[in-house]
């Protein structure tokens, strides 16, 4: 706030006013023009995608479509004839919600264990968690696939959901919060009253950890919802596939049917835009907090 005040003050100064005030406004116009151009570049692909999805293949191939057409339903029907996109939507929702709930609960559990208990090797183990964050996800992918084959877990959702229990980033993030958000005195007092350790975690710590968990929850959900490579290699049955794989399938299944492909893209993107426009403040706030902590 004080900077705004200082800012206004300097403009009012007579020595500055004649020169800086007009040049400042030209500068401001340029700045806004830049912001608007970048905003247009950010949004234009989404606009073009929605408009294209409402036109027949002939119109898509021959003209620039800046206004809506009336072929959306026809395109949609052809898409559904080759790829059951809503099945992918439902599968993706199931996987992403389960994986998010599980990773949040398990990460809170691990974070609480590291934050509130000193046990032999706890520092080493936490260092191990931090170090594992630096390992790229694709390093073990061949071994992961072969192991899932041996365990007969291929073509099931387990390999997409269970590994979330060992999320180094989520654990680290919640632990940083747990150190300050859950007071030791509260835990001690509960112990004095004879509460069990599980009761303390579930009834005292978990509610206090809700803010970092909800911020992480959004990003875990987005990450799982968008995940492509894992479902692609783990699932064989087309009816089990998640939305990203289904959208990718439209590219090969209807390679010259542009209208149908556009509809698939729209069905994948529009829900995200709607959810984001409702939750954008929380999502951006959560990301900024995460950036400062990390």
């Amino acid at each position: 706030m004080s900077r705004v005040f200082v800012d206004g003050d300097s403009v009012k100064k007579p020595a500055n006013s004649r020169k800086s005030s007009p040049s400042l406004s030209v500068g401001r116009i340029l700045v806004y023009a830049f912001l608007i151009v970048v905003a247009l570049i950010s949004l234009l692909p989404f606009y073009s995608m929605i408009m294209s999805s409402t036109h027949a293949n002939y119109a898509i191939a021959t003209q620039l479509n800046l206004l809506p057409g009336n072929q959306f339903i026809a395109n949609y029907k052809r898409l559904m004839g080759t790829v059951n996109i809503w099945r992918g939507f439902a599968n993706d929702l199931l996987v992403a919600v389960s994986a998010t709930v599980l990773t949040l609960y398990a990460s809170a559990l691990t974070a609480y264990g590291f934050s509130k208990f000193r046990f032999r090797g706890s520092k080493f183990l936490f260092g191990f968690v931090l170090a594992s964050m630096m390992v790229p996800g694709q390093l073990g992918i061949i071994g992961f696939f072969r192991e899932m084959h041996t365990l007969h877990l291929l073509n099931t959702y387990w390999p997409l959901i269970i590994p979330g229990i060992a999320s180094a980033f989520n654990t680290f993030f919640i632990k940083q919060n747990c150190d300050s958000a859950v007071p030791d005195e509260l835990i001690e007092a509960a112990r004095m009253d004879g509460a069990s350790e599980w009761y303390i975690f579930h009834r005292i710590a978990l509610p206090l950890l809700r803010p970092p968990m909800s911020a992480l929850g959004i990003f875990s959900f987005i990450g799982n919802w968008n995940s492509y490579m894992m479902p692609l290699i783990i699932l064989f049955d087309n009816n089990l596939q998640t939305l990203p794989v289904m959208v990718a399938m439209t590219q090969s299944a209807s390679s010259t049917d542009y209208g149908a492909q556009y509809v698939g893209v729209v069905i994948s993107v529009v829900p995200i835009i709607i959810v984001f426009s409702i939750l954008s403040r929380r999502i951006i706030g959560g990301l900024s907090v995460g950036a400062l902590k990390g």
Partner: protein
Amino acid sequence: MASPMEKKSRYGLVFVAPYFIVFAIFGLYPILYSLYISFTNSNGFTSNFIGLQNYTRLLHDKFFYQSLWSTVVIWIISIVPQLIIALVLALILNEKFIKGRHFFRAVFYLPNIVTPVTIGVLADLMFDWQTGFVNKLLMALHIIKQPVYWFGHPFLAQLIVGGVICWQYFGYNMLIFIAGLQSIDSELYEAAEIDGAGKFQTAIRISLPLLKPVMMFTIITSIIGGIQIFDIPMMVGNAVGNATQTLIVYLYKAGFVNFDYGYAAAIAYATFVIIIILTLISLKVSNRKSAS
């Protein structure tokens, strides 16, 4: 005294145990197993120990170097403008006089949460030389007369993939930079204001140097992420000369199209080594700069 402490500490282990059990099964074991597979000619049916043969094959594999080159080119095309745009936008949107700051932040960040594969499919559609929106738009604006065959030239194809990745990530980096700017002590700015420093000078002399740790964090995470790009190059292109075949796309094809698991595992380990080398180089460069 000792016994309640011991009891407590045992609970600590109970709380962290699920993490390490799952990590051992789904994290560590696959990584070590991959290392073993990389010394075999495993194809799913047979598996013989062949020593370092996969790695010597890798060192003589033209397509591996091509993938490495494509990955690096696409990464550079995406990261350089990405950081510059993100930084400029962060400096602008950190100014309190800008109206609609939240709106702009949200709009710039939106591409980042959209499914990457979907963006890849969309980019492939939009840059199609006959039916794509981009050629139609450029022709309507009289910038080009003939449609451009975007995926016909290797560099153009890499430019598009890099550009799409830049488009997807500049907003994310902008938010990280804004968070970094907001953690800078406002007294520094007030002091600069009193000393008569202009906005531009303040940005160059105060904001940028203090943003360096955040920049380094961004560059290192973008190396780790950028070398592993898969979703978008997988969808965009099919261009001439494997121009958009990145390392991980090559890994995927070796492992899950050709079922050459041993070789795919070797590619994964080679990629890991490349990431480590690039990270160390960038750390060293940044340390040398700060020392001088």
